[in-house]
């Protein structure tokens, strides 16, 4: 499970895109809960990459359905340095 700090940061980046005003939680999904289209997801991915100074490869994205998935993936990449 990712650190609260990482998840908070991701919430901050999602909030401007949260047009439906969904309560953000680790198990919230990007596609069905937040209803983000693929283009918005792309922008979000870019922001997450810049925030954590990492590369989130395109190959990983299909696996990342929830906020927790993304937070875990981000931490894994950050730790690998």
């Amino acid at each position, binding site marked *: 499970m990712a650190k609260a700090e990482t998840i908070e940061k991701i919430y901050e980046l999602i909030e401007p895109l949260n047009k439906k005003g969904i309560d953000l939680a680790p198990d919230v999904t990007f596609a069905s809960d937040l209803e983000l*289209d693929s*283009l918005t997801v*792309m922008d979000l*991915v870019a922001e997450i*990459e810049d925030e954590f*100074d990492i*590369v989130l*490869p395109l190959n990983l994205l299909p696996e990342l359905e929830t906020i927790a998935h993304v937070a875990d993936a981000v931490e894994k990449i950050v730790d690998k340095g």
Partner: protein
Amino acid sequence: MDLLDKFDAVAELRASLPFEKADPFTVVMDEIISETEAVIGGRRTILAGTNNYMGMTFNEEAITAAKQALDDFGTGTTGSRSLNGTYASHKKLEQTIADFYGMEHCMVFSTGYQANLGMISALGGKDDYVIIDADSHASIYDGCSMSNATIVRFKHNDVENMERRLKRLPEDACKLVVIEGIYSMLGDAAPVKELLEVAKKYGCMTLVDEAHSMGFCGEHGRGVAEAEGVEHLVDFYVGTFSKSVGTVGGFAVSNHPKFDVLRYTSRPYIFTASPPPSVVAGAIKAIEAIKNGGNRRAHLWENAKRLHAGLKEAGFDLCTDKAESPIIAVHLPDAMIGTKFWEQLFLEGVYVNMAAPPATPAGMFLMRVSVCAQHTTEQIDEIIKRFKITAEKVGLELKA
């Protein structure tokens, strides 16, 4: 459960588009009058939505050579380039393209799509990185999916965004940056010089797809990299015969000394039949004609600039500030106006491409107009006139 259920949303979207008298997805060309006109549904129509930029589809020498090849070599090779599908003409075509690009090696693929698929999937190995523009053509994305590499995407045409990503990649890894000279939907040119310079700064190899720029960009028509004077920074060019060359097929050229090994490792090259001899013979003649096609090139650019200026003056919302290519994309506010506009323009006797998401960036709804070197000035003016009439009929508000 049905395997096709997953497409229900697509089918619904498709059914919801409000076409009444014509439908862009079911257009049938009944008769091709020339490079620029066809009969569609009994109506004589100006073609302003093809990729026939240099107007080579009826080039006399290409047609004569293609007919001769049919007589001499038959309708097809029935085999892979790696087995029985390499004829002397395939080698000659590869030499013709290598000469055109001033490079050592060339591989001809059966389509342009397969050229990207074949190059990227073969080059991108397990520990490698492929870095692509977010607005890349489907053939680039599919080449990435088929490769075993890690795929990194940067914001469209954004040099700084690309550099930030390159910085984060391991220094000693093999990296391939893939860009296009002209992007096919908006017709916008890439800042090829800056992108390639940054790519080289980070030790990347580079692949430039000049599918929509070959024939008319650069002094010899090699594309945007030539126009910007940075061909020495290109490791691999990919191109197609289905646009300026007027037939079908694809190619890759390179100076890399080990290039030929790709003939044994690129699956989309190996596991398909080679292009038919008639196509190959036509392509050779068309490329020779493009080489000597200075006048056509000049007229093509005149057409593009005239169309852009005319539509801009009329108050249409254009996707580029100036004509960067023969593709002039008109932005429409939504799917409803977009579909009505396309339909009415079609009834006025002008065919353009209706481009909608997901083929377009940022969910845009576009009328993609593309000009041909064989369009007359009168035809260009006619296209502009009919655009204006259509806007009035469908109630599209134009900027004053």
